C-alpha cells in the first residue's frame, strides 16, 4: 500500500529509486522463497526425504545460510580467463532477470512500469541472459564451461522462439502487449456467456500454455532440458569456474528467472492478480492482487519443479529437434487457429 | 579317490593327454572330446593336458602355437566367450613363506620376516625346483588363459611355457578383443610382452613404475616395513625356574595326599 501511495505522490526520480529498491529486494527474496520451498522442500518430499532441518525453523533459513557461505568463499578467477568478460557475465545474466520484473503486475497499480509493449519487453530482456551465459562459458577458458555455454546458447535460442510464439496467441486474444491489459482482458472475459470468474486464457490457450511451460523449462535449463548444465557430462556447464558471490549471482538469477517466468505464465494464462469477485479497479484488488498472484505463481512453479524432479534429460540434438520440429510448428498452428477464431468471432 | 593325484607331476611326458585320461578313474567324455579336438587341430602344439572330471580341463600348448590356439578355439571350436588371460610365476617366494605371519603347523614361533628375505632374494639365479600345476610346465613363467563355450557350457584353460630369456608371446587381442586389456595387465604385472598388441601401454601402474609386482620376487612392502604383531610377547615370571620346579613338586605332593 505504501508503494502505491508513494507512486502516486512522489516525483519521478523518487519513484524510480523506490522501484529499484523494491526490485532489488524482491528479486533475491523471491529467489530465496523459490529455492527454499521448491528446491529444498518439495524436492525432498518427492524424494521421500525431509530436506534441510538445521538452519532456522524447519530449515527454512538454509538458503540464507548458503548465501552467507557463498559470500565468504574465495573469489577465484582462472588464470587464463578473460577477466573482464568473466566478471561481467554473471552481472549480465542477473540484469536480464532484474529487467523482467519491471513489467510484472501484482495489482491494478502495483507495477514498476506498465510498458505498452510489456510482454514483448519481457521476452526481449529474458533472452539477454543467453549473452551472459555465452560470455561465462567462453571466458572461463575451460572446455566444460565452453561446451556448456555453447549448448546453453543453442538451447536458449531454440526455445526462445516457441516461447514467444506461444505468447502470441495470448496477445492476439487480449489484443494488447501490455501486461495489465492482458490481465484485464482475462478479468473481463466471459466463459460461455458466464462472466463471473473472467476467462483465464488457460482455457482457450491450453496448447499455448503447454508450449509455454515446456519452453520455460528449457529456458531455465532445468531437467529435462538441463543438458547445458548436466553435471555428469560437462560438470556443471558454463558456471563451472565460478565461485563465491559470482556463483551466487548465477544461482540467484536461476531462481529469480524461474519466479519471473512463473509470474509471466500466471499472468498470461491464469489471470495474474485478478481474483474472481473482486472488482479489478477497486483498491481491494491492490491488496488481494499480490497474494492471488503469488498463489498462482506457486501453482505454476510447482509444475515447473515437478517436471524437474521427475524427468531424465534430453540429449541436445533431441531437444533441438523437439523445439524445431514439434514445438514451433505447434505454436504456429496455435497462432493460426487463435487468429482465425478471433477474426471469425 | 583323489582326482588331484596327477596334478603335481613336474615330469613331462610328450603324449600326455591320453595317459592322463586313463590315469584318472572317472573319465569325462565331454572334456576328453575337447582335448581330442584341440589335439587334432593343433597337432604337436598340444604339449600336455589335464582333466578333472566333471569340472575343468587344462591344455598346455607351445608358445608358438599360442595365437593359433586362440584362433582355433574361437573360430573352429566355438569357444567364443573370452574369460581371462593371465600368467603364473611358479618361483617359490624368495621371501620364505611370506606368511611367517601365520603360526607354523609345527607349532614353532614364526621367525622375524626380515631375516628370511635377503639370503633368498636372488633365488631365481640359483636352481630352484619349480613346482608347476596342472598340465605341467618347464619354465618359471606360464601364460594362463581361459575361454568358454556358452552354447555347450564348457570351458578350457590354456597355458603356455615362456622361456625366461624371452618373455614374449603372440597376442590374442586380434582374435579375442577382450584380451587387449588383459595382456596389458599381464605385461605390467609380470613383464611379459605380447607381440602384435595394438596399444601396449600401462593399464594400472604409473609409467615410471619399476618392477613387476606380481612376480614372486617382488616384495610386498606392507609386509616388510612392520614387524608381525603375532609374535608371542609374554614376559616370563621373574623367578621362573625355581617357581616352576616348586610348582611341580607341590602338585605331585598334593596329589599324593
Amino acid at each position: 500500500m505504501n508503494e502505491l501511495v508513494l507512486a502516486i505522490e512522489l516525483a519521478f526520480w523518487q519513484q524510480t529509486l523506490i522501484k529499484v529498491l523494491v526490485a532489488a529486494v524482491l528479486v533475491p527474496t523471491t529467489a530465496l522463497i523459490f529455492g527454499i520451498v521448491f528446491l529444498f522442500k518439495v524436492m525432498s518430499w518427492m524424494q521421500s526425504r525431509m530436506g534441510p532441518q538445521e538452519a532456522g525453523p524447519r530449515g527454512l533459513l538454509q538458503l540464507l545460510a548458503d548465501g552467507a557461505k557463498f559470500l565468504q568463499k574465495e573469489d577465484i578467477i582462472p588464470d587464463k580467463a578473460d577477466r573482464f568478460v568473466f566478471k561481467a557475465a554473471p552481472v549480465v545474466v542477473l540484469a536480464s532477470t532484474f529487467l523482467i520484473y519491471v513489467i510484472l503486475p501484482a495489482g491494478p497499480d502495483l507495477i514498476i512500469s506498465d510498458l505498452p509493449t510489456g510482454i514483448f519487453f519481457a521476452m526481449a530482456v529474458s533472452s539477454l541472459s543467453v549473452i551472459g551465459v555465452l560470455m561465462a562459458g567462453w571466458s572461463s577458458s575451460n572446455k566444460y564451461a565452453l561446451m556448456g555455454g555453447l549448448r546453453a546458447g543453442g538451447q536458449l535460442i531454440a526455445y526462445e522462439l516457441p516461447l514467444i510464439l506461444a505468447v502470441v496467441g495470448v496477445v492476439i486474444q487480449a489484443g494488447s502487449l501490455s501486461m495489465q491489459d492482458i490481465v484485464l482482458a482475462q478479468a473481463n472475459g466471459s466463459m460461455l456467456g458466464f462472466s463471473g470468474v473472467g476467462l483465464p486464457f488457460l482455457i482457450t490457450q491450453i496448447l499455448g500454455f503447454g508450449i509455454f511451460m515446456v519452453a520455460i523449462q528449457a529456458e531455465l535449463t532445468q531437467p529435462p532440458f538441463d543438458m547445458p548444465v548436466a553435471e555428469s557430462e560437462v560438470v556443471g556447464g558454463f558456471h563451472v569456474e565460478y565461485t563465491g558471490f559470482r556463483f551466487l549471482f548465477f544461482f540467484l538469477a536461476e531462481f529469480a528467472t524461474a519466479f519471473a517466468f512463473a509470474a509471466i505464465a500466471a499472468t498470461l494464462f491464469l489471470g495474474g492478480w485478478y481474483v474472481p469477485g473482486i472488482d479489478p479497479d477497486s483498491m481491494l484488488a491492490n491488496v488481494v492482487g499480490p497474494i492471488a498472484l503469488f498463489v498462482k505463481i506457486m501453482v505454476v512453479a510447482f509444475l515447473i519443479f515437478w517436471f524437474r524432479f521427475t524427468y531424465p534429460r534430453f540429449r541436445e540434438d533431441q531437444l533441438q529437434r523437439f523445439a524445431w520440429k514439434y514445438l514451433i510448428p505447434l505454436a504456429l498452428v496455435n497462432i493460426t487457429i487463435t487468429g482465425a477464431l478471433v477474426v471469425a468471432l | 579317490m583323489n582326482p588331484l593325484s596327477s596334478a603335481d607331476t613336474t615330469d613331462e611326458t610328450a603324449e600326455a593327454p591320453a595317459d592322463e585320461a586313463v590315469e584318472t578313474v572317472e573319465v569325462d567324455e565331454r572334456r576328453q572330446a575337447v582335448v581330442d579336438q584341440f589335439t587334432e587341430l593343433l597337432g604337436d602344439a598340444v604339449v600336455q593336458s589335464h582333466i578333472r572330471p566333471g569340472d575343468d580341463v587344462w591344455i598346455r600348448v607351445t608358445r608358438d602355437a599360442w595365437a593359433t590356439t586362440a584362433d582355433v578355439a574361437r573360430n573352429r571350436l566355438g569357444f567364443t566367450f573370452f574369460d581371462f588371460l593371465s600368467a603364473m610365476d611358479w618361483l617359490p617366494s624368495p621371501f620364505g613363506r611370506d606368511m611367517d605371519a601365520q603360526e607354523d603347523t609345527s607349532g614353532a614361533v614364526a621367525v622375524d620376516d626380515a631375516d628370511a628375505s635377503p639370503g633368498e632374494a636372488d633365488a631365481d639365479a640359483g636352481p630352484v625346483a619349480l613346482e608347476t600345476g596342472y598340465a605341467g610346465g618347464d619354465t618359471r613363467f606360464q601364460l594362463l588363459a581361459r575361454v568358454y563355450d556358452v552354447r555347450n557350457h564348457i570351458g578350457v584353460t590354456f597355458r603356455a611355457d615362456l622361456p625366461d630369456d624371452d618373455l614374449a608371446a603372440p597376442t590374442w587381442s586380434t582374435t579375442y578383443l577382450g584380451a587387449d586389456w588383459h595382456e596389458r595387465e599381464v605385461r605390467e604385472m609380470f613383464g611379459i610382452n605380447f607381440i602384435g598388441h595394438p596399444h601396449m601401454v600401462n593399464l594400472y601402474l604409473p609409467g615410471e613404475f619399476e618392477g613387476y609386482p606380481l612376480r614372486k620376487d617382488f616384495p610386498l612392502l606392507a609386509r616388510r616395513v612392520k614387524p608381525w604383531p603375532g609374535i608371542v610377547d609374554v614376559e616370563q615370571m621373574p623367578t621362573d625356574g625355581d617357581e616352576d620346579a616348586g610348582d611341580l613338586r607341590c602338585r605331585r605332593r598334593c596329589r599324593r595326599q
Partner: protein
Amino acid sequence: MAKLDGEQVVRCEPIPGYMHRGYEKLCEVRTYPQVTTLVNRIDWLGSFANEVPFILAAEKLMDVEAPPRAQVIRTILFELSRLGNISLFLGDLGIQLGGLTIGFYAFRDREFVLNQIESATGGRFHPNFDRIGGIKDDLPKGWIAETKRAMDRIRRLCDEFEELVLGNEIFAARTRGVGVIPSDVALSYGMSGANLRATGVDWDLRRDACPPGLSYDLADWKVWTHPDGDSYARTWVRLQEVRESTHIVDQLLDSIPSGPIMAKVPRIIKVPAGEAYVATENPLGEMGYYVVSKGDLVPFRVKIRSASFNNISVVPWVSRGVIIPDLITIMASLYFILGDIDR
C-alpha cells in the same frame, strides 16, 4: 580419457588403475579365511557375492561341501547382494541421465536390503560371512519375515523405476539404439552378466554352470534376455533380473532346511595342492577366482577375474563416433564398479 571432435567422441579410452590395490598380490600373503575379508572390497556393492566364488574354489580344492542349510542361506545372501547392487544401478542410471529422484528411491529401498544383510552378517557392506564349509553364523530370529518385506519393497522400487525411468519416453529416446553391442563382440570381449544377456546370449552361470555350494536349483526362475544389445536393453534386463531375484529369494526363504551350518573342516585350514577356477554369476557379471594352491596356509596364486574389467574394456570399441551424452548412457548402462575394474 576421451578425444573429442566437437561433441563427437573420436576415441575414448578408460584409464583405470587409480584404485588398483593389488589384490592378487595381497591374496598371496593371506590365509584362506583372511582372503574373504579382502575380496569383499572388490565389488563393494555386492560384497558378499565376491566371497562366494573364492570360498567355493577353496571348497572344491579341499573337497568339502557346505551343509544344505548353509548353502541355501548363502544363496539368499548372494541374491540379496545382487539386489543391493543392481537396485543402486537403477538409481545411478537415473542420476546419470539427470533424473535425480529415482536415485533417492533406490537408496531408500536398498536400505531395506542392506539392513537384512547387516542383521544377518553384521556387516552392511563387507559381510565376511562365508566360510569354507559353510557360513559364519545362523540367521537371527525374525529374519525371514523381515526379508520378505524387504523383497516387497524392492519389487515396488522396480515398479517405480519402470514408471519413472524405463517407461519414460525421454529415457527411451536417450537409450534405444545407443551403444549397440552385437553378441559376438560382447562374447569376444568377455562381457558377462546382464550386459551379455542384453545382446541376446542366453547364458546365466546360476542356471547353466552353477558351481556346487549354491542352491539355485531349489527355486523356479527365469533368465531374461533382450535381443537389442543397446543401453535400453541392458537396463531392461537388469530390471527384470532384480524382479526375478526377489522371487528367487522369496522361494528360497520358504525352503531353508534345518540343520547345521558348518561342515567339518579343520581349525587351521590348509588347502591341498591343486588348481581350481570357480565363477559365479555376480551382480556385475561373471566373477571368478583361479586359485592355485600348493598345500599351504596361503594360496600360491589367485587370479581374480572380475566382471567389470571385461565389461568396461568394450568402451573403446562401442564409443567410437558417439556423442558425449550417449557416452554417459553407455557407461551408465554398462554399469561398472571401480573396485571391480581395478581390483
